[in-house]
């Protein structure tokens, strides 16, 4: 299955990456090669195999529901590219 440029453009939209022309061209070839390589997994019969999400078998991790201090508004905003009134500021969403 050949990867086409429109597919790569679709994936870039999903991934929220504003790529340029050169990047689309390079990625179309690279993704095609890499996905061609990983297609070897199809050689294996995995019928009835349980997928592994985590290598270490674990039950759910619980802890006591205790109130603890968090990092606070000032620390949370210290790296904000744009902040105002204790909030992160972004471009207008509604016209």
């Amino acid at each position, binding site marked *: 299955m050949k990867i086409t440029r429109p*597919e*790569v453009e679709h*994936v*870039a939209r*999903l*991934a*929220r*990456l*504003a*790529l*340029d022309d050169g*990047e689309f061209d*390079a*990625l179309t070839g*690279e*993704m095609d*090669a*890499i*996905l061609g*390589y*990983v*297609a*070897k*997994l*199809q*050689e*294996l019969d*995995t019928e009835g*195999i*349980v*997928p*592994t*999400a*985590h*290598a*270490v078998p*674990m039950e759910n*991790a619980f*802890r006591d529901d205790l109130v603890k201090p968090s*990092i606070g508004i000032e*620390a*949370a905003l*210290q*790296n*904000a*590219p*744009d902040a105002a009134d204790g909030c*992160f500021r*972004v*471009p*207008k*969403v509604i016209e």
Partner: protein
Amino acid sequence: MNFTDRTIHELHDRLRAGEVTSVELTRAHLERIKATDGAINAYITLCPEEALAAAAAADARIAEGRADLLTGIPIALKDIFLTEGVRTTCASKILDNFVAPYDGTAVARLKERGAVILGKLNMDEFAMGSSNENSAYGPVKNPWNLGTVPGGSSGGSAAAVAAGQAVATLGTDTGGSIRQPASHCGVVGLKPTYGRVSRYGVIAYASSLDQVGPLTRDVEDCAIMLQAVAGFDGADSTSVDLPVPDYRATLKDGIAGLKIGLPKEYFIEGLDPEVKKAVETAIAVCRNLGAEIVEVSLPHTDYALACYYLVATAEASSNLARYDGVRYGVRTESARGLSDLYSRSRAEGFGAEVKRRIMLGTYALSSGYYDAYYLKAQKVRTLIRQDFLDAFAQVDLLLTPVAPTAAFPIGEKTADPLQMYLSDIFTIPVNLAGTCALSLPCGFTAEGLPIGLQLIGKPFDEATILRAAWAFEQATEWHKESPHF
């Protein structure tokens, strides 16, 4: 006397005996970094003031007789660990201006023991790479040969230890990112079992594979560093609540009587003849020390790389969705609306390899392809993990090469992502299986580049591979060599 080529345990003894102070040690390392980092490029951020203040505090603690093994020891951290008040970039332009608001658990544990943090080390951007050529802050050079790569993604961590720029360092290993650079730089590197060390405050690449571990000058230091950072942490839901053994106490129990498996799939064509010879010599050393050597099989090895690149990129695409230019990191200046702000900030901030992996992962998780790629890979992962559990039913540990070749020239593999990915084929299966493995020096090529030996242990049995590694190290001289540059 030179203090920038010593081990933690030797320096600890000298600090306690009053032969040197932590401030002196810290100054010596800062000088060494100043003299050598123009050539190596191992550091992204240096913290001289913080380090000297920590060293003075450590000297006071030593004087009070409260010295821990790490008290006053100058160490450094891969720039993937959050460090309160210090810039933490993950070697990405997108985090160029990020100052961490808190310490990650491993960092906090090292600080509690009085370790002195010299600075933050270069790496492949977001830990994606096998050569440390993918850093926004330029490539790291291998101290053994400045024309070759140090390995990746913890290339700065390995190079700093090899070049005497830190006594020990911490890295992270997702597909071999501690062991492969340790091998290429001639130092000891350990990837603990998944869940052994907390990932809280470690910038995530592929969450089900990432694990924190040390890079050190010898095996005893490796045990000391692991001891300091291992153990349950309620802040990481994948941290495992198991007792942490005293790794240093069992180091000297020897290798005699241990049953070592050689997975036949790891001794294949494509393995560099010099690497093969060094590993075979190492096997003979282990046999002479009384280990029993048997051949075993990990039949799904050939599928590990394909499986890894689907699992890792899928998780990466999800983890890296948090970089949107809103809450932290670099924001584009040319956004037209919110959605455009996300897409442009990400496109401007991420490097080529990171974009490639986000794209692959997004594709593998997208509607219509999820079952064929991501789910299929998770099923194959089950088979790979089962291979290891079957092998460990017969043997105590496995012995393999770390990488198919020694360090390769800078630029040699950058044009071909698949060729680059192949340099991790012997380390990746361990991450998929979630178990532990260690890399230690076992020889040199004719050109003087280090070769590494990998010892793979049962889940949570770091003690056995450390013990075997220590016995091997005592029987050989490889770890005593230092690069001359």
